């Protein structure tokens, strides 16, 4: 359980406290990065990068209760930068990317492949909202703090995204 005391300690530069915060966050951070980037190595890089920035900037965190939103916001920017990089590379690296995705297919479950494919139909923002609520269990209030949107907007965007997902194989329900 992360208390405000721990967050405050981390803000004040206590490495131990920072470690506790990190312990609380890193799994969710990595998983979100993994689904967004769909690449193991890049997700790892992005998370480390984000953590270094968090460590650099934690003394500026004012709202102690919002540390999770704050961390995810940094991660999100890092992911966005990475995705832009993919976009720039798309023509040159198309072969490479194909190889990568083939490798991944071999090692992962059918369900995961389907989920990843399904997430690909969402916009980046929708992906962020879906992953933050599903993976990190963040409330719409927390997400709204993270991406500067009204929490009502977040809720409607989330349900729209989930509706979109229902067109995909793994999210089609029989009943």
């Amino acid at each position: 359980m992360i208390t405000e005391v721990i967050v405050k300690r981390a803000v004040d530069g206590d490495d131990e406290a920072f470690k506790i915060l990190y312990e609380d966050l890193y799994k969710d951070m990595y998983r979100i990065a993994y689904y967004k980037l769909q690449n193991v190595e890049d997700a790892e890089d992005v998370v480390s990068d984000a953590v270094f920035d968090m460590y650099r900037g934690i003394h500026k965190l004012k709202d102690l209760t919002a540390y999770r939103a704050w961390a995810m916001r940094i991660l999100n920017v890092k992911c966005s930068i990475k995705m832009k990089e993919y976009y720039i590379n798309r023509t040159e690296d198309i072969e490479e990317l194909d190889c990568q995705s083939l490798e991944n297919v071999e090692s992962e479950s059918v369900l995961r492949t389907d989920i990843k494919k399904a997430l690909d139909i969402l916009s980046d923002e929708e992906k962020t909202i879906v992953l933050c609520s599903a993976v990190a269990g963040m409330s719409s209030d927390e997400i709204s703090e993270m991406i500067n949107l009204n929490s009502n907007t977040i809720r409607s965007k989330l349900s729209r995204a989930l509706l979109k997902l229902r067109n995909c194989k793994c999210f089609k329900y029989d009943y």
Partner: protein
Amino acid sequence: MNNDKDIRSLNLIKEDADNVQIPDSLSPDNMMKKIAKMKEEGAFKENKEENISKDNKGNKKKNKRNKRKLMALISGGMATVVAAASLGIILLGPGARNTTNDRLIYNNIYTNVANGSFQGNNVDTLASYEDLARYYMAQSTMRKKESLGDKIEDFFEDFFYKEEMEFDPEDDGDLDSNYGSNFDNVTNATGSSAEESKNPSSGNQNNESTPDYSETNTRTEDVGEADIVKTDGKYIYYLSSKLDRSNKDNIDLILTIVRADGEKTIEIFEGSISEPILNTVSEKSNIYFADKEMIVYEDKLVVVCSYGGCTVLSFYNIKDKTNPEFINTLYMEGIYDSCRFVDGHLYIFSEKSIGLRYGNEYDIVYNDIYYKYEEENIEDLSIDQLKDKLTVSTSEGKLNPDDIYVANCEKFELYHMIGTVDMTDTSDFKQVKAVLGQSSGTIYVSAKNIYYVDSVYANEVKANVGEEVEDCNKSEIIRLSYSDGKVVPSGRSVIEGSVGDEFAIDEYNGYLRIAVSVNRWKGICQSVDMEYYNGSKWVTDKVVRIHPYTYSDYREVSALYVLDENLEVVGSIPALKENERVYGVRFDGEIAYVVTYRQMDPLFSIDLSDPTNPTVIGALKIPGFSTYLHKWDDNKLIGIGHDDGWNIKISTFDITDKTDVKETDVCVLKDAYSSEALYNHKAVFISPKNNLLGFGDSDGCYRLFSYNNGNLVEKVKVQMDNNFLASARALYIGEYIYIVGENNGVYVYRMSDFEKVAEVN
């Protein structure tokens, strides 16, 4: 989600996500190690903002091959390159003052104080807040003219395209190793980190001054320091904080007084002392009372803490221990740093960061996500608003510009505040002074002087364009003499290198000795056209500086300097050890012990008996390193630090023969990886007289050791707190040892057999 299908979808993703394997490299232990390593390399410095802006810009670069590699470089090392570049742009500096008379604004903010006794090392005071505000404005407009962003992008484009031609495209390794290391250099080149200075090690042999009870382990003998636990030999006073459940914005600050009487130890007072502090500071904050500490002097008790961006002092009359009587509070702006107590006078140090930024360059808008920093943009402020922003105040009102000394740096980031209080009259500050500086530095207080050692950045070099020159990081020393609560500037000087903590600085017989880590690099000079506003018109000037991307041949060297009373270097060891950084230092009169570290831990003994000719007389190599050194007696030196497996290690060195120091005992705590003792000397309890050494570890256990036939043996290991972030202290009074946990009361042990005899919660 109003729909169970939606919930099912989310659960499905959640379930699948739970099965995603997390790479081992991201485990908290590994990540903290990585951070520790980067910190060691100076990667975490103050200018965090640049790191983000550069990432974003880095992405706009087009590069055909090795994209991923290049991107990794940009996000990893390049951060700091841009930091260096942005620093290079501000040239209205003291260097400038010496070269061009046109830079009026800069000159305007200085008025020379008639204090010529220090051969040009005068410390100037601020003329007025308005001049300072104008100086800020000028910096801001100048920056705009040079337009940071585009130039850097162009540069990247040229740089990487060029490099690509020269390199074998398949040879990723080379690219990494060559450029990777260069960027690392720049990381270090841009100056010392705030963390560094926050990372002191150590203490002093002050315990023996009074036979009956122990006092807080201090840096300088006879200079008292505040702490969370204090004793006067009869009573133990300690501070703790409790979460106020009814109002989660507040954490209650609690003072507890315990009568120390061995088995009969009892608590006689416990009460909240937060209210006066809350009433003092108008700007409420939900940040709890940070860095709380106190000092007990005769019948008075002072609690110092940070609250709402201010340092608040609350005074209590403790004549009646069961009912401390509140007297008054005082406050000054700035986050509390530390406090000293000499001859009935309190000296309180705080640090107020100015928190302004130039332009909007640090904001990122990407995919509707607005990534913004808190600092206010100077361009959005009028001169009056800016003036208000730059004004510092205390409970006495605005600080007079005459009381603000100006450090010799190009960009002012913060005020170092010094408030003094006479303990016989606590109704007001006796004096409040401030030093306007660039970085949060190290404060060292000797018996006579206060020293600020701040890292300074100077970008202008005296060389020809195209010439390769060597440069290094520098620190400015500002000396303020003090006595009877009065602080007067008495000199300044600039030295190469940066100091790790206050133990690396020492005043002895009128000489100042400093152990530093110097980062040296080479670079090619270029001429930069700078436009700046000189107060009435725009002036273009050519300035020579090292091109930030040509940095090469980076080295780190540990060195030692001896400065005389005029703060001029009279003796030095310019290269104590190549490629090693200074970790722990202990000056013992005419001998200095210095630990440097990269792979092995050389413990150098240095003879300083001739200040003009310091000489290394011994070097001992052992694995790991010590961050805190403490002289136990004439024959023994204790080092607390890490072994090579990152466990806590307590080394005992035999220093009978200074030229041949030996490690006679090693005590490794396998179950602890960190301790407050590694960075806060006040957490170390040390009493050679009673053969006792103690500190709390990172798991909330307090550990007491004592020597048995020359070997250090653990006598007590007690779990003080489940919340291992809480601090614990030990002290002794008479025959008993009292271990005080911040949130766990007092445990009493008999010294003779280390039996627990009482417990007060």
